[in-house]
């Protein structure tokens, strides 16, 4: 899915998909716990980067994410496909891993 185009709810973003599996099925039991663990890990990793831009993301009901800035503005984010798009809307520019500031900050991070 193109990250610049609209959010197709029927789509599973490629980062959410590891194994070739049937689409859109509800996962229960152990699979659900694994999925939730993976979501929380994702939130944690996202926040490592977002914090550098004074943004934060949190899981919402295991189905969506809420993206917030320091001024109290927030956005509901469906998946990573639109996360960076919403981030760009909030801060007015795209977060770019090729950006000097981001590169040097990540390089000098401890721990």
């Amino acid at each position, binding site marked *: *899915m*193109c*990250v*610049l*185009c*609209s959010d*197709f709810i*029927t*789509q*599973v*973003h*490629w*980062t959410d*998909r*590891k*194994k*070739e599996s049937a*689409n859109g099925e509800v996962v229960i039991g152990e699979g659900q716990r694994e999925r939730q663990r*993976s979501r929380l*890990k*994702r939130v944690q*990793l*996202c926040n*490592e*980067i977002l914090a550098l831009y004074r943004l934060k993301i949190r899981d919402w009901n295991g189905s969506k994410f809420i993206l917030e800035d320091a001024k109290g503005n927030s956005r509901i984010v469906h998946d*990573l*496909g639109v*996360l*960076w*798009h919403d981030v*760009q809307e909030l801060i007015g520019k*795209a*977060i*770019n*891993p*090729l*950006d000097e500031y*981001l*590169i*040097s900050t*990540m*390089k000098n*991070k401890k721990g």
Partner: protein
Amino acid sequence: MNAYNGKKPVTIITGCLGSGKTTIIQKMLSNKDYIEDFAVIVNEFGQVGLDHHLIKRVEERTVLLNGGCICCNSREDLEEELKTLLYADESGKETFDRVIIETTGLADPAPILFTIMSNPLLQNRYVIDCVITTIDAKNGKIHLKNNPEIYKQLSVADRVIVTKTDIASEKEISELVANVRGINPTCEIIYAKNGDVDPSVVKLNKSSIGISNFNINEISNRNHYSNDIHSISFTFSKPLNWVAFGLWLSMLLHAEGESVLRVKGLLDVGEEGPIVLNGVQHIIHPPQHLDTWPKEEDVSHIIFILRGISTETLSESLFAFQKFLDTEISVLEHLKV
């Protein structure tokens, strides 16, 4: 066919006008022994001469999506035709095993990939199997010089068919191939005389991303006339954190997607087999998880084909994110033999 999880495989054949696409397709269609039945979609105004019981002509019609980029435009004409073919196949009227889409000479293959992968119906019934780009052994050099669309077509290719080898010299052919490799180091190169190729060329070996095709000695530093296309490959000596990597890559594609012409990888994410990553600009194919590592390619690696982005900057970024990705990265200088 079960090999494609019940979906119909699609092969895209692209290449400059006159590079021999139509001849190759015609020869493949006339091979009655080949195991697959093809449905063929060609551009309405393409060269005449293709004759087949299941051939459809379309007039290129692109829908520009709101705020979208070029690679994420939808080919409405193909969408309609692919749906029509599906209904015909299901009703038993006209059955087929594979669709061959022949593009115009000026076509950018990316919208075709996008159309099939993002349309809810098409993505469930079709899968992009292989992109083939034809290039003329005799005139290829001129095309490289004068036809900018060829760079996109070559960088997207899984296979490049060098056509008309019967009328070009060995030197011309090897120079051309060096230039092609300079643009796309991991594509498979096939040589065709008189348009003769085995029809099985339309099928891709999914467990290979072609790193065994990568030979640094073959890459010409003298270029390919386009100084802003460069490729760089990395290996990972530790399994990487797939979630972290997804963040880094999706961030990169959001900010610079149009410049990342291609990304291909066979990635160790700490499981039995690797994840096969395959992307064209903003479009990432659903990653495939293999059960085991392929014999000739058992190193976790990734290759980027970039336009207008320096490989040094990309490299710096990956190295800066190493800890985040929980891995150790090296630039792949050459493949050990």
